[in-house]
């Protein structure tokens, strides 16, 4: 039992949204949420909704109630879960099943589901005990950080559709979207680097042992026979290092030379080749000891640097497009009959049915029903849009409330929004952009080294000592092999990446840091990026509200989940709601109505209350308050700016140009101008493709652009910009493809992060200076032919380790000083 509580404690911390159980209010046994609307009693326990109760029933029947012991109230509320029976029908389609499974033979099928709801130890326990729920299931295996579960099952005993239904029935509905079936993107993470690192480490360690007698050559520990054997063993161990561990450097150097450029890997490759062949010559022809141990150590340190530079965030994905958001299937109507078909098979002209909480999969015209579309993932605007019959509805919105009928106008991949991904920006690899600092100096470095080496060779040949000349030539190439130089960049960037990650600013890779340092133009999306839904400003105009009407309004909006109701509700946060006898009636797309003291009270749109007020303010949403037939007043609700955003913008403006892009009309121009000043270029009415073009033009004019956006409609701009940063309120939520993902709460630190990228560059430059000084010392001895294997074996690790220490300490200390990190370590 002790362990159980430990496990549950661990996970309560990572789940702050859970409401703590209170004594007087009954909480759902399954999900721990307050039982607000109804309390269902079953088995002596209380449940907030039938969904939660159903999950308990299933688990109880199968003797799986351990689930409730591991973590307290482990389930998630089942209220919002659709219970429609045929919604998984598309999983009967053979093509779809084939694309989804990982592995299938005559007997068993393996499939990996992504289940975003996995959040605690209980989830793991239940999903790994699936075989107790259905004998057709062999096993389930959870990857907690990736929020994935791999299920193995016998396809004869349970079909995929039944399996998904079962998972959904116990409260863990898998997220299946178009990307799962569109193409199988099996991510082969770079395991090769780890293999190479292991080989290099193995060989290096053993070579060090065999070279040890050489380091004490004076002491004559062993006889001549041993010396030879050890040298040959070193050669044997050097072979895998040279032919396997070092291959990446050869390939990269060759590619670079073929393009008439010199990157950092060229001098490294030259150094490795010289080390290897000179050592072979030294060992076999001269009978000396060679430099094989240095070669092993060099590769080992270089690969460690390479490995450290990679930092991946398991729970984040940086390359989601609309396909990770769109559904796999859609309900099509064929002669009044409903049929669930895969989205890929949807054609123009088809009639589709979209239900509550379902996504509009293609640009379509509304045929029937009340469309009430929430575009928050696309634009960042939370208030749903009302559409009338015959109006075109763009794909990407989510229908709220009742089902609607639509006729498809464009195929899913050709819509107003999705057409964005057909732009050629998405075809080409995003350019790594500016050349990295290391690559720029490596050209000069390589030529200088070659020049010095040749000069030494010529000098000794002229003075009549050709063999010393060859020794000096190779010594220079060996000693200047830029190990320390090559380590400064990966370690500085790797450390910076980690510092940023701790500050909830997650970068896709380390190239982004160098690109961020070169940014001179920052482009913000307005809705959802500059503005935040929880910062809405509510103003009331009209006859002053008495306390009674305030508490009446509070009581009404309490009953509604509409975004505007929520905002009015929080505006009235210090008012107590009156208790209403009559139910509050919510008319979708219009407003709320109730009867209070025999009078009809209405709260909603102008049309709903028949308001005839002129000179209404523009640029926000209006909610009218009416008693019987008289309109008493109205609320003017504007999406407010994020806290601290003015400071962010003004501090970025100090040395960079700032642009705003917005998909809205320009009625907020004056308002924004008064907050941010008139130095900012503001652009309104920007569609998804316009935003992309805007960035493209900026880039054409030589700007280094940073785009900050949040919705799918910014995807093109995020892609086209040098660095695209997606802002998200919840890191695990959907965010469009980008170079970096930032937690919205950290936006205040954006200028500090951007400044720190410059600091990183300076740290790299300083450590270059450090490693150059080692090189100068080395060259001083090398040109005189004084370099010995022992000298190499000592200088090389010292220089590398001191550079690593310097960059790590400097990065972390400076980050701490700038307030980007709480503790230095």
């Amino acid at each position: 039992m002790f362990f159980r509580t430990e496990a549950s404690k661990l996970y309560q911390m990572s789940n702050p949204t859970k409401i703590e159980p209170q004594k007087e209010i009954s909480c759902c046994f399954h999900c721990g949420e307050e039982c607000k609307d109804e309390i269902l009693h079953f088995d002596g326990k209380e449940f907030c909704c039938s969904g939660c109760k159903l999950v308990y029933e299933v688990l109880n029947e199968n003797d799986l109630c351990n689930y409730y012991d591991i973590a307290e109230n482990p389930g998630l509320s089942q209220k919002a879960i659709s219970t429609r029976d045929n919604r998984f029908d598309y999983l009967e389609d053979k093509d779809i099943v084939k694309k989804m499974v990982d592995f299938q033979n005559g007997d068993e099928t393996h499939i990996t589901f992504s289940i975003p709801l996995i959040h605690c130890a209980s989830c793991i326990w239940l999903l790994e005990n699936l075989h107790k729920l259905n004998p057709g299931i062999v096993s389930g295996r959870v990857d907690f950080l990736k929020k994935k579960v791999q299920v193995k099952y016998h396809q004869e005993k349970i079909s995929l559709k039944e399996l998904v239904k079962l998972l959904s029935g116990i409260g863990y509905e898998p997220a299946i979207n178009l990307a799962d079936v569109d193409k199988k993107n099996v991510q082969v993470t770079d395991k090769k680097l780890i293999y190479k690192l292991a080989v290099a480490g193995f060989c290096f360690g053993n070579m060090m042992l065999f070279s040890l007698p050489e380091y004490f050559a004076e002491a004559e520990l062993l006889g001549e026979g041993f010396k030879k054997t050890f040298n040959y063993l070193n050669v044997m161990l050097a072979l895998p290092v040279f032919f396997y561990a070092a291959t990446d450097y050869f390939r990269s150097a060759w590619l670079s030379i073929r393009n008439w450029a010199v990157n950092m890997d060229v001098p490294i490759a030259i150094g490795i080749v010289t080390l290897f062949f000179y050592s072979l010559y030294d060992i076999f022809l001269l009978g000396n000891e060679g430099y094989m141990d240095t070669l092993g150590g060099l590769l080992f340190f270089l690969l460690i640097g390479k490995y450290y530079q990679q930092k991946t965030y398991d729970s984040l994905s940086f390359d989601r497009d609309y396909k990770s958001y769109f559904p796999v299937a859609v309900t099509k109507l064929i002669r009044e009959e409903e049929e669930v078909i895969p989205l890929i098979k949807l054609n123009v002209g088809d009639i589709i049915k979209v239900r509550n909480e379902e996504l509009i999969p293609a640009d379509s015209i509304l045929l029937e029903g009340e469309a009430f579309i929430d575009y928050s993932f696309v634009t960042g605007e939370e208030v749903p849009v009302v559409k009338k019959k015959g109006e075109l509805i763009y794909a990407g919105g989510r229908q709220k409330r009742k089902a609607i009928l639509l006729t498809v106008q464009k195929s899913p991949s050709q819509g107003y929004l999705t057409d964005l991904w057909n732009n050629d920006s998405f075809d080409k690899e995003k350019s790594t952009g500016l050349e990295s600092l290391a690559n720029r100096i490596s050209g000069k470095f390589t030529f200088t080294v070659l020049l010095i080496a040749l000069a030494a060779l010529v000098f000794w040949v002229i003075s009549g000592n050709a063999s010393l000349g060859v020794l000096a030539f190779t010594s220079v190439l060996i000693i200047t092999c830029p190990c320390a130089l090559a380590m400064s960049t990966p370690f500085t960037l790797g450390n910076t990446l980690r510092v940023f990650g701790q500050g909830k600013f997650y970068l896709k890779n380390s190239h982004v840091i160098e690109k961020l340092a070169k940014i001179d133009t920052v482009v913000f999306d307005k809705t959802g990026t500059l503005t935040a839904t929880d910062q809405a400003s509510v103003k009331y105009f009209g006859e002053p509200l008495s306390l009674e009407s305030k508490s009446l309004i509070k009581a009404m909006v309490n009953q509604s989940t509409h975004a505007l109701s929520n905002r009015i509700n929080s505006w009235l946060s210090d008012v107590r709601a009156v208790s209403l006898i009559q139910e509050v009636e919510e008319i979708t797309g219009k407003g709320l109505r109730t009867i209070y003291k025999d009078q009809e009270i209405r709260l909603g749109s102008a049309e709903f209350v028949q308001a005839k007020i002129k000179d209404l303010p523009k640029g926000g949403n209006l909610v009218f308050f009416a008693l019987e037939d008289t309109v008493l007043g109205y609320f003017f609700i504007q999406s407010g700016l994020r806290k601290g955003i003015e400071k962010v913008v003004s501090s970025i403006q100090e040395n960079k140009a700032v642009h705003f892009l917005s998909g809205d009309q320009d009625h907020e121009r004056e308002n924004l101008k008064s907050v941010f000043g008139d130095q900012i270029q503001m652009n309104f009415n920007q569609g998804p493709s316009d935003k992309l073009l805007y960035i493209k033009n900026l880039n054409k004019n030589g700007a280094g652009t940073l785009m900050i956006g949040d919705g799918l409609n910014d995807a093109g701009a995020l892609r086209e910009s040098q660095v695209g940063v997606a802002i998200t309120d919840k890191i695990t939520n959907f965010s469009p493809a980008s170079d970096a993902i930032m937690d919205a709460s950290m936006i205040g630190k954006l200028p500090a992060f951007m400044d720190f990228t410059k600091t990183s560059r300076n740290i790299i430059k300083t450590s270059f200076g450090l490693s150059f000084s080692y090189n100068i010392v080395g060259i001083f001895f090398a040109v005189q032919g004084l370099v010995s294997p022992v000298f190499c074996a000592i200088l090389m690790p010292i220089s590398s380790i001191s550079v690593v220490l310097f960059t790590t300490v400097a990065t972390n200390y400076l980050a701490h000083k700038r307030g980007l990190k709480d503790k230095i370590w």
Partner: protein
Amino acid sequence: MEVIFILIAISLILAGSFLFLFFRAMKSGQFDDNHTPAIRILFDNEIKKKDKKVPSTKSK
């Protein structure tokens, strides 16, 4: 001192087999997820169940 040859052989074979084992562990996915197993080990075995199935540790 000739015994050192045997020792070298043994040490190389030993170190080599560790390398091999590491490779095999990598391939079987032991390092893919290093968080979940830490939680999994805390689950108690059930007592009342007779046919307790131990989930296999291999991914394939």
